[in-house]
């Protein structure tokens, strides 16, 4: 403000305020929440499409299509649930400002993430139908595939963070970012649980 008409009267000083904070105080957390909302809503819309298409079939999956197999998806679900452990430990360590512990727990976090990604390829084929066979196959593949893109981004993010932590000096906000990365992971795994139930377990129940 170079407005000569308006003299400026100082009422306080903010230089004592922190410059790195955690959780919903941080801007990055809000950005993360924003992306979670967008991705989560997108999955909800895809699920609506999946159920909408169901009205065009007598059976869903359609007759003569085998049910999706449960082996690989259940194993992968188990690994995903297991991955909560390092994710939570990373977040707690970050909030404690314990860089050594963050570095440590990022390793199994990344490793499990990579395993999940690899298994995701087989999870697609575990649907026991091709994406181009019929609308059911298309809807199921796009649901699993879209979620796979979230996995890819998040696991990529985690691996990147791990690499950075182990190879270069990082600013303190990296700890806040590590906590937010775990936050995003809770969502990525969490949103998979209903998808697993609906896509893999659902056909056997309904």
């Amino acid at each position, binding site marked *: 403000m170079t407005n000569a008409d308006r003299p400026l009267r*100082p*009422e306080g000083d903010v230089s004592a305020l922190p*410059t790195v904070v955690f959780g919903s105080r941080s801007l990055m957390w809000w950005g993360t929440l924003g992306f979670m909302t967008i991705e989560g809503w997108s999955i909800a819309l895809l699920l609506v499409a999946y159920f909408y298409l169901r009205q065009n079939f007598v059976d869903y999956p359609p007759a003569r299509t085998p049910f999706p197999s449960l082996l690989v998806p259940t194993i992968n679900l188990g690994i995903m649930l297991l991955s909560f452990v390092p994710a939570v430990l990373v977040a707690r360590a970050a909030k404690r400002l314990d860089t050594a512990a963050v570095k440590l727990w990022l390793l199994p976090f990344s490793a499990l993430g990579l395993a999940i990604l690899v298994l995701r390829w087989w999870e697609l084929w575990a649907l026991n139908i091709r994406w181009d066979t*019929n609308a059911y196959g298309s809807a199921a593949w796009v649901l699993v595939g879209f979620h796979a893109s979230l996995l890819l981004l998040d696991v990529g993010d985690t691996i990147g963070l791990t690499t950075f932590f182990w190879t270069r000096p990082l600013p303190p906000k990296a700890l806040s970012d590590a906590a937010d990365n775990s936050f995003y992971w809770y969502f990525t795994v969490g949103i998979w649980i209903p998808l697993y139930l609906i896509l893999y377990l659902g056909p056997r129940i309904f």
Partner: protein
Amino acid sequence: MSAEHSGEHDALIPAPQPPLPARATLPDDLLASEHEHLDALWSDGRGFWAWVTTVNHKSIAKRYIVTAFLMFIAGGLEAGAMRLQLSHPDAGVMGPDRYNQIFTTHGTTMMFLFAVPMMTAMGLYFVPLLVGARNVAFPRLNAFGYWCYLVGVVFLYVSLALNMAPDAGWFSYVPLSGPQYSPGHRIDVWAQLVTFTEIAGLIGAINIIATTFKLRAPGMSLNRIPIFVWSELVVSFMIVFALPAVALGSTFMLGMDRTVSTQFFNPAEGGDALLWQHIFWFFGHPEVYIIFLPGMGMITEIVEVFSRRRVFGYTAIVLANITTGFFAFGLWVHHMFATPIPELGQSLFTAASMVIAIPTAVQIFCWIATLWTGRPRFTTALLFILGFFFTFINGGITGVMLASVAFDKQVHDTFFVVAHLHYVLLGGAVTPLFAAFYFWFPKVTGRMLSERLGKWNFWLFIIGVNVTFFPMHLLGLDGMPRRVYTYLRETGWGPLNALVSAGAVIIVTSVIVFLVNVAISYRRGALAGDNPWGSYGLEWATASPPANYNFLYPVVVRSRHPLWETAVELPVLTGLSTERREVLVTTTVDARPDHRHDDPTASIWPLALALCMAVLWIGSIFSPYVVLWALLISTPVLIMWSRQAMRVTTTERVQRPNGEMVEMAQA
């Protein structure tokens, strides 16, 4: 009426060092040196490199606004071509193939490349200024959003030049737009273009939400934020929930049906043509409210200033904005009344479509009340607002008529709807936009637009819009369907069509007058000064145009109309760094100062990533394997972006969740 709690000092804000005598103001030499430091610090440099790497929200928003206005002109030229072809029966100006590309490009340009980007851009420029911030929350993401949008613009227009423009309408109904009836790549261009613009829109929305929630001036609690900011906030939430629908539908369903043979819309394999309509209109209806709500916000600002009174019914208007935003998601089936959806379901959507008129009416009544008890100044901006009343309400009435299933079944997909939609979009969005241009041009450029030319602009526009679009109601009732490249003389539609086409010429003239006004005034308009209108918002407490850093110090806000309700002196907070870019982050509801955030400097990586996205979305229509290549090139770019963001720069004050404060240079 500025009743609100006065700003108590938070224990976190210690008094300035060294303590100044009570009521002292900051000396001029201190201000001058602050300005010098901050100006250099917040500058992104000069020249081409600075232009492609800037993260300044004003530079990026200006780019958006200029590009979006160019798209308005492009869409207008397409409309001109269409009107030439329809000016008389069997005109023979162009054949059906070219006409289909032109009308599709017109709709796609106006809806995806002009309207939403323009409204988002006005938010990206003005929301930080109105809430007293130095930048948006995610400056590099902001730049990335613009580049994605620009890729979309270039993609569509190169396709048009190559005779490859989409040709199945901006709504691209299946099965016409599917692989069987639209072979080739035209519709793929549409599908991917939509995705680019949706990415840009979503990024803009996230930025506006985070900026509005976290970067407000200290003391600007949520019930003190300007109504334009409320409207941008509501619209940003709407974008988050509406745009994914069309991005999913266009790329993941239609695009995949066309490229990798998914069966979403193929009835022979259980697919469903109506699924497309539901998904598209679930986006499409909120889309039009996304376009016109910011216009309503602009109207409130301008009516306040040019009535010289505080708006009547702030709370009612805010609630009306929020309610409209919600309800807008419950109307989409009114675009599908002619389809075999059960009657009872359709009637629910009739009720919703009518009821949404109520919050809009509330806003209109509040504006009238403000004007009536104010003392209006007839600037061009206010004239455009009066023009809004005249035009938009017409569109609102025909909208209520169209909400009726029985009547809609007669005029659905006819020129009656074309009339309605243009009345509400031109009246409800473009008219307030012109008003906003006249209002805010002085702030952005430092010069006033000519009021004389402005009045010509206004009258030509209002007359042009009515001459062009009123006869279309009659044409629709008389049986003329939409999206026809010609019509037979025997239908009798010729004379009215000729009138419509003549009206289009008037609109074109009006826009030319506007462009001339901008061109002249940019260089030779009267100098504006900081606050030429005597307005109340924080944006008028900056220079015109604002400095790089917007505000020398964060302003303490204690009312809804800061500049109208402070004495001569402006209360500020000192303490933000002059060594690095710092913004003050405040708490979400009450805007108490919370922490200082290190703001990003210029970066090339947003542009680089946008180019990778271009490879991904454009290349993938030619071969699915391009996706892998795109991921491959994106990875190093993402790494470089992260590296730049993760540089160790200085000692930080880190506050743990338990409140403990620690000084650390690195993690």
